[in-house]
């Protein structure tokens, strides 16, 4: 069974990788990282960040809301401590980068371009960072502006992580492609809210948060389907994947690879199960190359 897929400048041994923010060095205690298609870090920022106030997580029906606020130690500590840890693994390392301005994004991309990093995922979509949850990827002009600066700052393959919180998804996707993105990650979490009726207060300290988990899968599958028709670069599907069939749905909709996020919390070994289930499906259906399934559900 040939599970390899080509994604944004990289050839992956299989299409399954973690979603940024749901994965870290600690996962090496639970699963064999060499079994994954790629390793995707939590977003790294130019400077250390304290993150948002608690509570940062709330459970909803078949999903979860989070507003962590990209707590982290910043790029200097990341390059010094985190990149060397991942060099011991064969799976390519994709570093997610996030900054507040286009120039900071470019500087950050340059600082993250070090040996051991295979690609950058440009997080232009985190809904928690800007006022009222706005982000670069809500707007095609802003998307093109920031990605052109990042493109000029590094030779690494660039994956642009898009937001579902826009009415201009395909235009944003095309803007990212025009700016030189090598692949698109569709998508980040859906801006959402939950209220505790007993306390009459929002369940999340930051009031709004990003919704993820099985609840959002049909929405993001639709977005992958639409985006795949609008651009020629590969798409990585991300949203509510819990099983091999979920991952296959994304491939059939037009994704070349998938990211598993929330379900890593539910079942830390989920990505390994998903890879095995995809292989079993391919065998059952006489598919010799998993890549042959990409976009198979697209209606001409």
């Amino acid at each position, binding site marked *: 069974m040939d599970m390899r897929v080509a994604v944004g400048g990289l050839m992956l041994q299989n299409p399954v990788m973690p979603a940024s*923010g*749901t*994965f*870290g*060095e*600690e*996962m*090496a*205690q*639970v*699963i*064999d990282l060499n079994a994954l298609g790629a390793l995707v870090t*939590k977003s790294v920022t130019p400077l250390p960040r*304290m*993150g948002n106030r*608690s*509570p*940062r*997580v*709330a*459970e909803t*029906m*078949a*999903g*979860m809301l*989070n507003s*962590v606020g990209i*707590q*982290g130690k910043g790029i200097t500590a990341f390059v010094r401590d985190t990149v060397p*840890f991942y060099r011991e693994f064969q799976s390519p390392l994709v570093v997610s980068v996030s900054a507040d301005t286009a120039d900071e994004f470019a500087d950050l991309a340059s600082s993250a371009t070090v040996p051991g990093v295979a690609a950058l995922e440009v997080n232009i979509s985190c809904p928690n960072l800007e006022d009222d949850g706005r982000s670069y990827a809500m707007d095609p002009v802003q998307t093109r502006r920031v990605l052109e600066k990042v493109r000029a700052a590094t030779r690494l393959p660039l994956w642009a992580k898009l937001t579902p919180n826009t009415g201009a998804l395909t235009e944003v996707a095309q803007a990212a492609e025009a700016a030189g993105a090598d692949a698109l990650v569709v998508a980040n979490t859906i801006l959402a809210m939950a209220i505790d009726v007993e306390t009459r207060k929002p369940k999340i300290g930051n009031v709004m948060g990003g919704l993820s*988990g*099985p609840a959002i899968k049909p929405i993001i599958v639709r977005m992958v389907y639409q985006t795949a028709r609008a651009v020629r670069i590969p798409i990585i599907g991300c949203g509510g994947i*819990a099983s091999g069939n979920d991952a296959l749905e994304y491939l059939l909709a037009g994704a070349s690879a998938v990211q598993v996020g*929330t379900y*890593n*919390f*539910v*079942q*830390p*070994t989920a990505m390994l199960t998903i890879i095995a289930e995809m292989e079993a499906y391919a065998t059952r259906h006489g598919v010799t190359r998993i890549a042959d399934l990409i976009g198979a559900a697209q209606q001409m």
Partner: protein
Amino acid sequence: MGAVSTVRSMNDVRKAAMRELPERETRGFSESASGGMRGQSESLAQIGGVLFNQQVSTRYWHLAVSAPTAAAACAPGQFFYLRCGDDGEPLLRRPMSVYQIHRERGELHFLYAVKGVGTTRLAQLRTGDSLDMVGPLGHGFTLHPDWRGVLLVARGVGLATLGPVAAAANRMGIRVTAVLSAQTERDVLSESYMRSCGACTLVVTDDAGTSGVAAMRELVANILASEPIDALFTCGSQRLTALLQEMAAERGLPGQAALEEPMGCGLGVCYCCVRPFARKEGIEQLRVCRDGPVFPLAEVITR
């Protein structure tokens, strides 16, 4: 308290304890992690066999699981991340501290109050069912072999978390005094277990009007004045934590507190369970799942 001539920082105590304790007392997940992150795959994600799951009072349930590998690895204060339903409801696991560790029988026991959808599903487990568990996770309690006595003060479901501390202290020859606080006498479920571990227990309840801050202050002050107590341990109440912080600081005593917080991953990757702590270097945002759930008492910022 004159016998405690110097106050060690918790880090010193932790380091000293790790050097001197018998191996079984120090095999925390986080501590072993420093020795190498790989090579322990599969050991954290495991299936336990339910031995019994009984309602033991109006609100509390006692769950016993056969899980020899996990029991052998588990230190007091560590927790397990339990899958409560396999049909996606609830979606997330629930963190649960361990009430009793029986290594010789390969058993872990949990004591929980049925509150929401997760614990309601957990209460449906029957003898012979399997329980999907990840753990042991986090930093547990540290006991120093030189200590003569420790005082445990806990409330409600926090009583369960201190059960293994009483057992471990007893094995190390450290005298245990425990103040157990609850709404009613019937909710003080860990008293008999604590007593079986050799602890001297005192029960205070809302019903009897003995659990208020003023009464607790007097009770704890009397204990500290009359017994050789070298450290304080607490879990389950912000109010009690604040009181003990104050009393420990006045007397130069070290302490440890186990905290609870809603979690995402349980492993330390998602930063969902972070709270602020007052450390020497200033306020730090630490993960309850990975940096805790047990923290130095003085560093906890109560809310």
